[in-house]
């Protein structure tokens, strides 16, 4: 699992978190910019998990298989899920939901790295 993918996913997630939390602070509902950010983070997550699975097929078994699968599934679903719930709340709190979810993604990246193993 290339380190660059973890770094890129972490950076785009933190950017989305900054955007969304700033929007919440400025009393703005989730907008198009946050949507694009969510899509970018989702794509990064798919690529990251995909790379891990390719390397698994290539012979690198995750250190903790069950936990790895759980975190991988969570990371794939979280950005889209947060966007859907965020849109149900067309106030600043919708942006807060998108921002909080985006803050969790770097933690997931870190844990996926740990349970997958170098």
């Amino acid at each position, binding site marked *: 699992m290339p380190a660059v993918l973890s770094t890129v996913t972490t950076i785009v997630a933190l950017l989305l978190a900054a955007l969304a939390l700033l929007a919440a602070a400025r009393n703005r509902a989730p907008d198009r910019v946050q949507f694009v950010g969510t899509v970018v983070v989702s794509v990064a997550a798919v690529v990251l998990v995909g790379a891990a699975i390719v390397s698994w097929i290539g012979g690198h078994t995750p250190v903790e298989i*069950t936990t790895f699968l759980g975190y991988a599934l969570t990371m794939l679903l979280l950005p889209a899920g*947060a966007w859907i*719930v965020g849109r149900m*709340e067309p*106030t600043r*709190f919708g942006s*807060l*939901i998108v921002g*909080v979810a985006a803050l*969790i993604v770097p933690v997931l990246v870190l844990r996926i790295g740990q349970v997958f193993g170098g």
Partner: protein
Amino acid sequence: MARPVNTGLGRVLVFVYGLFAVAATCRAAVQIVLKFGEAPVSYLLSALAAVLYIVATVGLVRGDAGGRRLAQVCFTVELIGVLAVGTLSVLQPQDFPDATVWSGFGEGYGYLPLVLPVLGLVWLRRRDPATA
């Protein structure tokens, strides 16, 4: 009529509580299925926390009088749990060979297990002064 508890900041609470419900349930399930013998007390506490998060989420989503009371009970038990387990895990770490969601006042989860029940109780109280 009380204002809804499941919109605005309440929806953020529902989202975060939902995440915690999923995370704690999965964690407890993995621990209990794969290595229950290592630290049964820790893993049962994890399972208890998971159940509380699920019930609190359901109560908040329902948002009616019963749901509020349910959520309020869960928040209160969680707060007591995280304070008790947090204190014990600091004073007598040998009793907790493996970490729970509540160890060290929830330090493994950014102290959210300590912050969330307080936030939840304050939220319920602000939305419905009659139940306070």
